[in-house]
């Protein structure tokens, strides 16, 4: 932890009610909602040259169906919020990278005009997520050019007009990987296969249909890449089937001749600033542990969107950020939010939950993912041996986040809550 004195030794402190880190969908929605709640002394800091976050490169449609009732592209969805921010006159600064955050809510940013330090009453974490890379997987082999994460390939094509390659293999069945399979095919590349190590797809069923099936791109479950070949440029990969422990099965190897390998193997909240600030991280979400106010372990520091837990749909990111803003506004105006002393535990079949702590005194919105696909199940919230909330699902898959409201009426003021998924 950096001492306050040392931290701001040579910069003037700029006091703000709210400092929002990130001008993607979460940061923009939080800013608009904070403004509407009466918080006018705020600023958004964005490290990229333009606001909009990852939506700038997500040119496919399907955004905003829930919120606006029409199927927009990512840039159009972002524009609606950017226009609102500009109309309200909410200041945002691009090219401003936040490098430090402290438990005293000091925010240090490297900006075009030099180093700057803010003292915020509330800090809004809205930095989104990052992609898992080859390094995280430890795939053996050479280290040639031609190995890209799906998001990098997407930026190359959709922002910079650069074709990543012509003969493509995709490892991982995340949504961005499948969307890039279609995008590459439309631009004349040949996508040979999508390989998924798990026995079920990581992405949404609609993307398997409209991005893979429509273009006759095969999806091989229980398969992975075991070796990468090539000197300066990728020349091929070895793939193999895996067993129940995800170990390659000898004798099942298959060689693919390709110049490009796209990785779509998971997203992780951008949590470096949080770790440095000493914010408690949930090992299951890799984002902050938050309470029902979306407040982290540091009072006055709030988190929403993909930096908190990775979402499937931007519509839900916007909603979560707006909920955050209402709680943050309460904190700024009253100096506190209700204490949350009850833990939420993940029981059978549950991968993670958000929030992880509640007060037991207010209704709260529960987000979760199941650990494996299930046909017909009940998601049950139990406290002190009693069912406090139940949601019945026709099907539940890890690719789809489940959200529902838990009413305070059935909650006790003490006793942890446990969430479990029970097959019917």
């Amino acid at each position, binding site marked *: 932890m950096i001492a306050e004195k040392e931290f701001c030794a040579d910069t003037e402190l700029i006091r703000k009610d709210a400092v929002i880190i990130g001008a993607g969908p979460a940061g923009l929605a939080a800013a608009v909602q904070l403004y509407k709640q009466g918080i006018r002394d705020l600023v958004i800091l964005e490290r990229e040259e333009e606001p909009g976050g990852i939506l700038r490169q997500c*040119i496919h*449609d399907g955004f905003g*169906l829930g919120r606006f009732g029409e199927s927009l*592209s990512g*840039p159009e969805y972002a524009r609606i919020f950017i226009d609102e921010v500009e109309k309200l006159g909410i200041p945002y600064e691009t090219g401003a990278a936040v490098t430090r955050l402290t438990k005293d809510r000091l925010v240090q940013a490297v900006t075009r005009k030099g180093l700057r330090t803010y003292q915020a009453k509330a800090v809004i974490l809205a930095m989104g997520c990052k992609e898992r890379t080859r390094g995280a997987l430890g795939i053996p082999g050479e280290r040639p050019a031609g190995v890209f994460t799906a998001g990098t390939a997407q930026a190359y094509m*959709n922002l*910079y007009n650069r074709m990543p390659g012509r003969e493509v293999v995709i490892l991982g069945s995340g949504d961005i990987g499948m969307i890039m399979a279609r995008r590459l095919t439309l631009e004349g590349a040949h996508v040979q296969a999508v390989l998924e190590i798990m026995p079920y797809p990581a992405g949404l069923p609609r993307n*398997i249909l409209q991005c893979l099936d429509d273009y006759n791109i095969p999806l091989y479950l229980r398969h992975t890449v075991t070796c990468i070949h090539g000197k300066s440029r990728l020349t091929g990969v070895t793939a193999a089937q895996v067993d129940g422990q995800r170990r390659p099965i000898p004798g099942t190897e298959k060689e693919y001749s390709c110049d490009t390998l796209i990785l779509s193997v998971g997203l992780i909240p951008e949590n470096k600033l949080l770790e440095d600030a000493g914010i408690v991280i949930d090992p299951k979400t890799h984002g902050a542990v938050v309470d029902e106010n979306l407040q982290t372990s540091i009072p006055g520091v709030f988190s929403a969107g993909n930096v908190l837990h990775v979402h499937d749909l931007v519509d839900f990111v916007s909603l979560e950020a707006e909920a955050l803003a209402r709680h943050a506004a309460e904190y700024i105006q009253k100096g506190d939010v209700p204490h949350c002393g009850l833990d939420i535990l993940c029981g059978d079949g549950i991968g993670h939950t958000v929030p992880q702590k509640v007060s037991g005194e207010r209704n709260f919105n529960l987000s979760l993912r199941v650990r494996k696909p299930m046909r017909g199940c009940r998601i049950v919230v139990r406290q002190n041996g009693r069912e406090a909330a139940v949601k019945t699902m026709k099907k539940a898959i890890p690719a*789809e986040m489940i959200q529902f409201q838990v009413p305070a009426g059935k909650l006790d003021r003490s006793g942890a809550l446990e969430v479990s998924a029970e097959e019917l």
Partner: protein
Amino acid sequence: MKRKFTCIVCPNGCEIEADIEKDQVVSITGQGCPRGRQYVLQELTAPARTIASSVLVRGGVLPVASVRLTKPVPKDMIFHVMDAIRNVVLTAPVSAGTVVLRGVCGTDSDVIVTKNVPAA
């Protein structure tokens, strides 16, 4: 004969089953909303999709502007539409909402720009 569909109208991705006898749809079940039924009937007769791509921009802060279709086009038209999109070159500044191809390839769908690209 039963055929299974994954609805792509919205992210719910309902699993819908259609019972078909002698080219007649007997029943459609599993959809969460009326759009699912419409989708399956469309899939059985004339499957259609939207696509997104980019067009070249001269003199902009970015070399390309993203575009999308305003309505789905027949699936077998997708690569013809891509060829048409590939021939479009715009000059910055470009604004979102601009129609660059009206009724692309004889369909009732337009190609519109989805991103502002200011001049460099």
